[in-house]
């Protein structure tokens, strides 16, 4: 049965408390900081999509120059605080730490990054000085990681930025699409406020492109436009029964948890989660933490091909989620309009596909799971209707760019809307790249 309010407020608070607690004190941070070898041309830095100078910011913690440390981080990644909580560091910076090659624990880079950036936010250190206004105006669509990152770079260069955001809060997927035990709504709001505190950035909320505003209008009123609109709902399974009550979209499910409060979000007794990406993990673990009795994750390939990291999978496993590998949903059976069973095909691995991963092949055998809720998390799809409406060049509704510029003059794009959905840190870098392209376009650099 799907119902909300399964747990006491104390239980919710415990289940959704911070999964990676911060350092208790500066001594603890310094102990870890001093372990850092201060590598040259450091592998951690090279593995960060935003190229944060990790050895430098860690050294600055060791020398108690926390302000300098925070500036080092934010100079490369203005969402460095959020990224320290949500980045899959085990496959990025920490995964590349040279200590791994000594079979030693890597430096807790994310935790150290959190230490400096949270202190900067708490103390409201103003680390960047905005240049005098150039008189140029840029419109950004979407106050997510790409848009905010782009806005901050542009504002620093003296451009007046207006961000149009369809939601009532900024932060994008950071605010609406990531498990609550990684980042709290309050943190997301604080982060947006901290980023925009440089000045020169106005966010207009509840303004949806294609509804409340049009691209033509933006083009007319601004010197350039940046589209950081992200991606939309979860990919459809395209199987019978998908419309039954109890089949939900992982992004919407997480969005509800983030926007409505834990007790208001209904969850089933027996939940199946389709997919094995980060969003699938976030959905499965949170379903369990909302009080679901059984959560089963289904993936059509094996652990070797899964898009989430081992670390993420471990979180789900430790939460008591079951995993069935080589299982593809075939049809959903229901009664009285509600989900009752999920029939799956048993798969086996065949030849490698375009991504280089071995593709799943149907064995012809099936099995059936009794479930009352199905969460779809098999990837996200772009905003097809909007992309069509914008009349912009795209590839499978992912906006096509060349050096961040779309085919429409003066209109730039980046982030998930272009790449189809990657990490927050990738979107931040896309925003920086977009800003650089815009500055060049405006002949300001």
């Amino acid at each position, binding site marked *: 049965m799907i119902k909300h309010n399964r747990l006491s407020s104390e239980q919710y608070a415990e289940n959704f408390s911070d999964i990676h607690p911060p350092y208790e004190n500066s001594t603890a941070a*310094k*102990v870890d*900081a*001093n*372990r850092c*070898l*201060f*590598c*040259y*041309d*450091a*592998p*951690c830095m*090279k*593995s960060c999509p935003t190229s944060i100078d990790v050895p430098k910011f860690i050294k600055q913690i*060791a020398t108690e120059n926390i302000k300098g440390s925070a500036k080092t981080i934010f100079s490369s990644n203005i969402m460095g605080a959020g990224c320290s909580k949500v980045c899959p560091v085990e496959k990025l910076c920490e995964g*590349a730490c*040279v*200590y791994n*090659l*000594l079979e030693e624990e890597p430096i807790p880079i994310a935790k150290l990054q959190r230490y400096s950036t949270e202190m900067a936010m708490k103390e409201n250190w103003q680390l960047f000085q905005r240049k005098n206004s150039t008189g140029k105006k840029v419109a950004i669509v979407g106050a997510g990681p790409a848009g905010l990152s782009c806005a901050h770079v542009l504002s620093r260069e003296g451009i007046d930025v207006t961000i149009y955001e369809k939601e009532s809060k900024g932060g994008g997927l950071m605010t609406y699409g990531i498990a609550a035990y990684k980042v709290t709504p309050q943190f997301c709001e604080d982060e947006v406020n901290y980023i925009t505190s440089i000045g020169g950035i106005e966010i207009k909320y509840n303004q949806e492109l294609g509804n409340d505003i049009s691209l033509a209008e933006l083009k007319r009123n601004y010197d350039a436009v940046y589209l950081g609109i992200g991606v939309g709902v979860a990919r459809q399974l395209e199987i019978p029964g998908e419309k039954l009550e109890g089949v939900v979209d992982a992004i919407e499910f997480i969005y509800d948890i983030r926007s409505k409060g834990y007790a208001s979000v209904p969850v089933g007794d027996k939940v199946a989660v389709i997919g094995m990406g980060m969003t699938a993990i976030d959905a499965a673990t949170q379903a369990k933490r909302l009080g679901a009795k059984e959560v089963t994750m289904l993936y059509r390939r094996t652990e070797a091909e899964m898009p989430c990291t081992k670390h993420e999978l471990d979180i789900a496993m430790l939460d008591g989620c079951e995993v069935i590998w080589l299982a593809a949903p075939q049809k959903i059976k229901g009664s009285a309009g509600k989900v009752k069973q999920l029939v799956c095909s048993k798969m086996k691995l065949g030849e490698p596909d375009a991504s280089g991963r071995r593709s799943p092949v149907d064995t012809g055998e099936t099995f059936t799971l009794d479930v009352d809720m199905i969460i779809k998390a098999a990837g996200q799809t772009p905003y097809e209707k909007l992309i069509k409406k914008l009349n912009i060049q795209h590839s499978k509704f992912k906006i096509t760019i060349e050096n961040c510029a779309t085919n429409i003059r003066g209109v730039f794009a980046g982030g998930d809307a272009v790449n189809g959905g990657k990490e927050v840190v990738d979107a931040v870098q896309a925003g920086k790249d977009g800003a650089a392209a815009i500055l060049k376009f405006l002949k300001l650099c």
Partner: protein
Amino acid sequence: MASIESTFLGIKSPNPFWLASAPPTDKKYNVLRAFEAGWGGVVWKTLGSQVKNVSSRYSAVDFGGQRVMGFNNIELISDRPLDINLKEIAECVRLFPDRAMIVSLMADNDKKSWHELIKKVEDTGAHGLELNFGCPHGMTERGMGAAVGQDPEIACMVVEWVMEAATLPVITKLTPNVHSVVPTGRSVVKAGTNGLSLINTIQSVTGIDLDTLVPNPYVAGKSVFGGYCGPAVKPIALKMLTTIAQDELTKKVPISGIGGISTWKDAVEFMLLGASNVQVCTAAMKHGFRIIEDLCEGLNNWMDEKGFATLNDFIGKSVPTITHWEDLDINYHHIAKINQDKCIHCGLCYIACEDTSHQSINLMYGKPYNTYTIKEEECVGCNLCQLVCPVDDCITMEEHRVAPEPINWKQWQERGLPLNDH
């Protein structure tokens, strides 16, 4: 199993580790705890002139996240009444007759004061005397401590007074706050001291509080030069020890080595450079007396591995290996080698060599891991890369002699061979 029993000027102790004259040896309570823990002997904190201490007294230098790399004090000699000290010394000797009890002395600067003090101390049953000619603060202003040790003539005079009265072995402790410890060392040996100990603490300013802008240790808004010790001073102590161990006159008396000894390895190094035993203070002040266990066990295991049955089998063994620069073999050459299987690609060797040495390491870009190799023809064999490499035995220095026959600087000049050829 090797024996680590030690005899210094006839004074026996079950191991060569004495606690140096300092706060840990200030009273019976500490000394008994030290003996119970297993220390071979103590040098009781300096007795003599009457003093008054201040608060605070210590400060330290931390490094790379480690506390107390160097330690600094502005404490004076014992500020307890002399008769209490003497009574407690006698009790400690009675309770632990197998341990060495040396008493450090610093009397007022007249013969009578020294003679009276020596008489009282010898009555305690202690086994030896150590003359504090090294204390660099508080006492120097009154013409004592380092003020004596810094002037070979005054030192000679005081030792002569002491030797007139002393029946116990006398060790003279040297100050490092001089350009060379040898002149005072020679002077006091001539005056008859039975042994030497070194080094005392080095004058220092350990740091400044960046909020108050007052250096530490802090005493009511002021500070003062203190005496520096601990691991940071060990290399300086070893150098000074070597000069005493190599001098024709001073090498005739036994030396007690002091200065930053924290581990059994440190102790072995002091003994290899001529110390017959060693004295420890800062390490005990940081960790407590329990460190004696590993000091003894580590020393014992090392001696077993090397086949040394007694301490005398290795004391002084490295002294002849320290020579003059002009006697070094110029044809000796070694070149760094990076073991690619052990390399963790941290790049520390590369950046050190590239920025500050001889540009002898090649960087082959990789993402995320670069590959580093040695340009053998450029490498001067300086060791820098090996020193900064965080992985044991990853960078090794391999011998590539320039020519088989040895040649030193003097011979090089005589033959008119080319210079500045690198």
